[in-house]
């Protein structure tokens, strides 16, 4: 492997992450699991599209429209390369990962699931991979089963074969947005396939942090969101095997997704446009591709190594300073976790932690992190979550520890 990635150097590529805010206050951004900051190259790529090559895509014969289309479809190629998709046409641009999951539930689900059919989820899913299935439970009566947790915050796969027996779909997160736990997707996909089920992966927290290879994962659907991969908001990705996408009904109806429309009917366009009704997020796709290219330049193996190193430093630092008074909900095994630190202090509620941290410029997210069933399993209402990314360094972790110490001091005076 090349020399290790240096978060302090990477940070310089992100305009918002200067040492001070415009009002002179400090900024320590530790909420990338919620949304990542953007490097200058992403802003430049979007600006450049609007300044030099913007028009609607797949419409104009004129050169400008062709240029915009080339950039939009070029972004699709970049995404396909980044996740190891065998075919570009398998990459569908959506609004975000939530829309990707809903697309599958509404189209594949509607065509393939009926009363009593089983969908297997896990206890550490984000609401985006729960509510679409609860909706199908209400509307057509599908049955949900849940993969539980081990004592070390991993998915308990000891009864996996039993859980997936007779299931039509297994849909799990690749990395928990609350615990940082990394899922053994391949084992789950293999079990699903043995049982005749398909496997969907919510990779919103995986794709930004680890090398992605949909073929190695052997999943059937994979979704992620653009703004966590250094891209803009308003764009996400659904990848699925083309034979599955071909067999699925269309999602939204409108322009772009049709081959022909008559007063008495319509025929559907080919992949991927079949699932991209209306004018798509063009500049957002270009921005996402620029974010991905930035990560490719860093190298995803180095990104992962950096985050393992920084997570180890954070766990050591926080444990040394706060001992048992600070609970960190997440796996102890570094190889099985990402840089998500869900914190709970004995005496101080996570909201109050986050409030005091903000006074020190430290941004963490407090709350249930859109994973209420998981919070109930953990027996907590909320956690304060610090999450690490490419632009974080040890000084950010130190600032977190100092601000936490100030929090304890403030509330125990």
């Amino acid at each position, binding site marked *: 492997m090349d020399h290790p990635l240096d978060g302090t150097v990477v940070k310089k590529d992100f305009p918002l992450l200067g040492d001070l805010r415009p*009002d002179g206050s400090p900024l320590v951004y530790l909420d990338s699991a919620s949304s990542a900051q953007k490097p200058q190259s992403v802003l430049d790529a979007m600006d450049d599209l609007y300044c030099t090559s913007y028009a609607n895509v797949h419409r104009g014969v004129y050169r400008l429209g062709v240029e915009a289309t080339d950039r939009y479809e070029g972004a699709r190629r970049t995404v396909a390369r980044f996740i190891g998709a065998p075919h570009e046409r398998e990459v569908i641009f959506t609004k975000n990962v939530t829309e990707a999951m809903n697309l599958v539930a509404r189209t594949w689900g509607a065509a393939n699931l009926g009363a009593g059919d089983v969908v297997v989820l896990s206890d550490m899913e984000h609401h985006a991979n729960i509510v679409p299935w609860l909706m199908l439970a209400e509307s057509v009566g599908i049955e949900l089963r849940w993969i539980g947790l081990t004592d070390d915050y991993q998915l308990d796969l000891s009864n996996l074969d039993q859980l997936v027996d007779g299931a039509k779909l297994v849909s799990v997160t690749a990395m928990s947005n609350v615990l940082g736990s990394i899922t053994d997707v391949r084992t789950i996909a293999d079990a699903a396939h043995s049982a005749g089920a398909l496997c969907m992966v919510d990779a919103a927290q995986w794709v930004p942090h680890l090398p992605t290879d949909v073929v190695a994962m052997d999943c059937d659907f994979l979704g992620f969101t653009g703004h966590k991969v250094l891209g803009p908001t308003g764009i996400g990705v659904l990848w699925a095997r083309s034979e599955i996408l071909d067999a699925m009904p269309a999602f939204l109806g409108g322009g772009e997704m049709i081959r022909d429309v008559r007063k008495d009917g319509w025929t559907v366009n080919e992949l991927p446009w079949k699932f991209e009704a209306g004018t798509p997020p063009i500049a957002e796709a270009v921005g996402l591709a620029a974010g991905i290219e930035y990560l490719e330049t860093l190298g995803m193996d180095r990104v992962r190594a950096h985050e393992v190193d920084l997570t180890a430093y954070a766990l050591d630092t926080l444990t040394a300073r706060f001992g048992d008074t600070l609970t960190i909900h997440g796996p102890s095994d570094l190889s099985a976790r990402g840089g998500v630190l869900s914190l709970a202090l004995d005496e101080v509620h996570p*909201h*109050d932690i986050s409030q005091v941290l903000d*006074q020190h410029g430290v941004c963490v997210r407090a709350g249930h992190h859109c994973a209420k069933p998981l919070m109930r399993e953990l027996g907590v*209402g909320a956690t304060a979550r610090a999450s690490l990314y490419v632009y974080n360094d040890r000084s950010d972790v130190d600032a977190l520890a100092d601000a936490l110490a100030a929090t304890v001091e403030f509330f125990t005076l």
Partner: protein
Amino acid sequence: MPGLEDLYREIILDHYRNPRNRGELPVPPAHRTEGFNPLCGDEVVVFLELTDGKVTDVRIAGQGCSISQSSASMMSSAVKGLSIEEVARLTRAFKDMMSIHESSLEGADADSEAESELEEIELGDLEALRGVVKFPVRIKCATLSWNTLSQAIEDTLADS
């Protein structure tokens, strides 16, 4: 930037550490109503006993941050023994302090009649929560228990 002492007044921390009227009441005769802050997962459960249009007893359960829990504690102390009408007035005065009051301080057009009505209402300990308006994200924490109480009164009246 407003300071922490604007938000976390000593009396708030006291109610947080030593919440008043914490617990449950047998249902019935009491009514149980849950309130959620969907943003953060804070949860307040109000057990309300109304007799002849008066709050004869109230208990608070649930979990949440210092602001939501202290607000619930102060509320429980403030409304015990009040009539439904008095609770409604106090609720309005409290919510005004949480929102409208701030803009009127800044010289926006104040409804003088409503203003004078508000001034007559004794907020007592609840005044300590005034600083919350400087932290807009936390206003929902402070009003959660009050909204839940209003719902509890509605539910109780609907049932009787």
